[in-house]
């Protein structure tokens, strides 16, 4: 990673557009990939990209946004920690005549020039439907939840629930948090397996937890008997699908989101008009189409 840390941010640009990217967190590979996509586009478009990392804290993000306004960037791309909390910051940017683009997560108010996202609820549904299909339409399932209170956990959980409600003959026997963490995914899955020795399927709200569950299942000698589905399509998960350890994951294309958002920002800086809504496709990754995703 060169994180666009060429430090020259202070110099300002002669004609070069300056774009602030306020990320919710960089301690998550998904957003690292998004950032990399954005940087790639910035280099291609000749845009100066300033990245901030709120570490999943709404207040820190408000501060980051404030700092962007202070620096007088041309466009702000924000990936909100909290859709409601970001509104005041967006309004402040609007007041300073700085267009705002939201990426991955929407804002509940303010003037948004463009929204670029994939749908986490839909992804949760797709993943869970595939899980149920692989289980043969019935059986017991467990869910590993993300960090309580985060929007990814909420939306994916909602998608999971929608799919479960639509199916019949599927029983949710456990739903426990493992905080999006592989180690905790391991621990919690291991505990769930103890209480539910003939569990048929497991949906994890991200791949890290799914991979932890894979290791726990392997150690418990039940990897063959259980269908595990994750979310995010990180590299390790793709390998696990190829090896047959995981059944599926959801590919969100964060790099595309990053690229698209910077390209949109560049257009805005040139005074061009842009699409208000730019959906980015989510894809179900299974052993059938895994080769498309493995580079």
């Amino acid at each position: 990673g060169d994180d666009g840390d060429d430090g020259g941010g202070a110099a300002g640009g002669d004609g070069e557009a300056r774009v602030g990217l306020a990320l919710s967190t960089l301690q998550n590979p998904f957003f690292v990939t998004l950032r990399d996509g954005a940087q790639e586009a910035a280099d291609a478009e000749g845009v100066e990209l300033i990245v901030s990392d709120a570490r999943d804290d709404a207040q820190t993000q408000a501060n980051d946004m404030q700092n962007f306004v202070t620096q007088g960037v041309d466009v702000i791309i924000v990936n909100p920690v909290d859709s409601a909390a970001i509104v005041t910051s967006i309004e402040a940017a609007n007041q300073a005549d700085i267009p705002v683009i939201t990426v991955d997560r929407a804002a509940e108010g303010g003037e948004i020039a463009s929204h670029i996202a994939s749908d986490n609820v839909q992804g949760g549904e797709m993943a869970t439907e595939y899980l149920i299909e692989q289980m043969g339409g019935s059986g017991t399932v467990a869910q590993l939840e993300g960090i309580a209170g985060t929007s990814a956990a909420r939306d994916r959980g909602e998608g999971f629930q929608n799919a479960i409600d639509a199916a019949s003959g599927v029983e949710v026997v456990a739903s426990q948090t493992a905080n999006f963490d592989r180690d905790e995914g391991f621990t919690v899955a291991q505990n769930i397996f103890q209480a539910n020795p003939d569990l048929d399927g497991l949906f994890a709200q991200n791949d890290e937890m799914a991979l932890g569950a894979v290791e726990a299942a392997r150690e418990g000698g039940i990897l063959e008997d259980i269908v595990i589905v994750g979310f995010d399509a990180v590299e390790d998960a793709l390998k696990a699908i190829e090896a047959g350890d995981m059944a599926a994951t959801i590919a969100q294309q964060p790099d595309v989101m990053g690229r698209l958002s910077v390209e949109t920002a560049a257009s805005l800086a040139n005074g061009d008009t842009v699409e208000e809504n730019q959906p980015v496709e989510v894809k179900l990754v299974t052993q059938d189409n895994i080769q498309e995703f493995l580079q």
Partner: protein
Amino acid sequence: MTTARAAVAKDLPARARRVLGSSGPLVGLLLLVIVLSFMSPFFLRIPNLFNVFQQISVIAILALGSTLVIISGGIDLSVGSVLALGGAVCAWAFVDQGLPLPLAIVLGLGIGAVVGLVNGLLITVGKVPPFIATLANLSVARGLALVITEGKPISGFPEWFRNIVTFDLFGVVPLSVILVVLLYVLGAAYLRYRPAGRAIYAIGGNEEVARLSGLHVVKAKLKLYTAAGVLSALGGLVLTARLNSIQPTAGAGAELDVIAAVVIGGASLSGGQGTVSGTLIGALIIGVLRNGLNLLNVSSFWQQVVIGAVIAIAVMTDTLRRRRG
């Protein structure tokens, strides 16, 4: 008695120090400001400086309570969770239950008082070490905040609520900054001029001696932890107003920032020492550092390295200097 006279002379700088608080952190802050203003043209602008102050306002409110607790020889790890719980209760009461906002605010502060009091009772009556008592409530209060909000942010406050905090007096001074300054002036006066405030230093210096001297140690501690709880909840309300929303995960990990601000400000975790002015400077050091690194567009990974290093160096030069002086 030459000894006595020598002692007086030796004490003169100490007097100056008493009035200014320890000068060490202030020097560190000024150095940081000077370096950053050379590195970024945006840094030294008045609006940015007020931004920094406003950005630290929530942490500063939490840290005020923690300063008292730490001077008394205790610690409060539950600040971040109580912040979320206070905000959550207020939002739940107003948005979900439709109670009038002033009542909701009182309920929010009230729950902070309750958690603080429970901390105090666990410590004084239950004899649980402060670290464990407040760690337990870090967990409990966070859990309750999640339960109350059902894990989702709650928003939907009237405009005037937001303005209480974000309105800029004279066009530049946000009201939250004025609130912080007011609270800190009150805090400083309390510690210096109220008998109960002085007692905190005695309790932190040596609890047994304080007891032998006839102080009501248990009562003092209960008051302290309750006050810290109320201040944490107040921080939650300010945050809620500023963002027009409260997240159940708000303030996670804030305890380390808060304690760092207090200790950078010259307080000792073994108790008996510390000033609120020092804490404010400590919070500003952290805030200025983050702001500056953002303005310089330092990658967030390296930011953590730099922040850690600067904090260590700041505290080290301060203590070494004080030792020599």
